[in-house]
């Protein structure tokens, strides 16, 4: 492998990591509160609000049912209004985030709902307020599950980022398509795939490790 190819791979990998990293952070910032809201307002939740829950649920489902490639194109005006352009790595972060927030929110909701209702009831019996139950019971008890939810979201974003690359976002996916596919460079294709596989493996292993450390159950 020559140094030009190597630096091309390196640049692409950094672009992918930037897109995935930034979108994951933003997805947590958006998805965590949304997920908490979904879980809390659900029937039997600590702030039961069936109407709000139904509206939020519909919005989230809508976001999740639109194919990413279409979403990406559809929100170009929105992306441009925030970043100033709709092309490039930074611009790709916006559709990635928009796609990841509802996904993340559902995963967060699921983790929170898995917390033993008995423990929540015990907190109620001790006079905990809804906010205290969220901060001191639901989130800490669900923490291992939340870490895994973030991991799954990030892994998913690696896949999405490859698609984002196809419309000028850069990154490993873009490289694989432009060189590997369009210029019949099987070697570049293979290299990017190997890097992607290693990236996903590494992320999942890290997530599992952190979750296991936080998991105080047998």
């Amino acid at each position, binding site marked *: 492998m020559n140094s030009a190819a190597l630096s091309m791979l390196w640049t692409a990998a950094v672009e992918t990591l930037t897109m995935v990293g930034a979108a994951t952070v933003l997805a947590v910032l958006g998805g965590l509160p949304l997920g908490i809201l979904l879980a809390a307002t659900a029937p039997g939740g600590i702030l039961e609000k069936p109407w709000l829950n139904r509206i939020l649920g519909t919005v989230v489902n809508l976001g999740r049912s639109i194919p990413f490639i279409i979403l990406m194109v559809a929100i170009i005006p929105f992306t441009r209004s925030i970043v100033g352009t709709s092309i490039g790595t930074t611009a790709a972060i916006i559709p990635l985030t928009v796609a990841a927030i509802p996904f993340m929110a559902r995963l967060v909701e699921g983790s929170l709902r898995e917390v033993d209702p*008995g423990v929540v009831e015990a*907190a109620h019996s001790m*006079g905990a307020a809804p906010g*205290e139950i969220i901060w001191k019971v639901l989130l800490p*008890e669900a923490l291992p599950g939340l870490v895994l939810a973030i991991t799954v979201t990030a892994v998913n974003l690696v896949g999405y980022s490859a698609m984002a690359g196809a419309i000028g976002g850069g990154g490993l996916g873009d490289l694989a398509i432009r060189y590997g596919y369009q210029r019949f460079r099987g070697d570049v294709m293979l290299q990017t795939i190997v890097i992607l596989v290693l990236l996903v493996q590494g992320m999942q292993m890290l997530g599992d490790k952190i979750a296991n450390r936080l998991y105080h159950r047998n």
Partner: protein
Amino acid sequence: MKPGNHCLSERCQFQLNPRFREMRGEANLFRFLDRNHLFFRRRGFFIQGCGNLIRLQNLTKTFAGKDEVRALTGISLEIPAGQIYGIIGPSGAGKSTLLRCINMLERPDSGEVWVADTLMNGLGPQELRSARKKMGMIFQHFNLLNSRTVSGNIAFPLELAGTDKRVMRRRVEELAELVGLTDKLQAYPHQLSGGQKQRVGIARALATEPTVLLCDEPTSALDPETTSSVLELLQDINEKLQLTIVLVTHEMAVIQEVCHSVAVLEDGRLKEAGPVVEVFTRPKSEAAQRLLQGFLSARFEVSRQSPDGTLIRLTFLEERANQPIISKLIRSHQVDVNILFGRIDQMKGAPFGTLMVELAGPPEQKAAAMEFLEANGVGVEVMER
């Protein structure tokens, strides 16, 4: 049974009369007793049994759903301060629902829940949270926070109450010592046995110095040995801290071992309530008799010796146990008495005797014999005719 258990309660009850409560305003009886706790103890008064801490009036609860469930129907109950008060009944009787109505985890459809002189179902959300901080609760499945150590679990209600960090640490240590878990403070719940988990639950429930401890089947997930040790701890707490305990169980043995009084529930209705000794020796309701029959027959495996004999169970309270009632009976009636089994049980420390006997003779003589026994203060129950 503790001395003073009844005598003082009568004197205090008039003070709890609603008319007096209003007149007294802020200076309510319980705060007064609390402040003068030592004075009363030194003078040999027992705060225990002094008035009712909890009063339930005509509680009704229906669960809506595909087919409505009437969980509670017109339950009125008074729970004296300082007692361990048992609530027993078969599965689905409404025991848990009743217990959960006391701290409003379940809101009754109608009726009143008074704890000390607070009307629980009249409280707003913020007031209710404050009131709950003065009530502890423990659960069948412990319901500890898995993400926190023993120390963190015990500290949890203190955090909610905004307790100062240093005070909190000291209090956690005290509580751990009280329940015998000093060496487990840094362990996580999954590293503990069931009995140890329940001890954490108890320590946590006691952290904010509640006036009442609500227990929903606290020993049902434990083996017999651990059950005894947890019951002992509850008894210990009741005596040391003069804490009122309401204990839901489906096991008569638990009632017998620790409770002062018991309420029998069936189909959401209160069938009988009173001191344990009375309910055990002279059950009035069929529900109580059924529960006792199952409980006692499992422990005295006796059967009739002759086909025309009548198997009866006699129960004696301590003062009757010394009188030669059986020999008097044989002398005065034309019956044969065959003693099959006898034992003396401890009920909350007070002895009571049980005798299984078979009566043989003409039916009218047998009936007369049973009347004679009852007239002499012996509990009589026909097991097999």
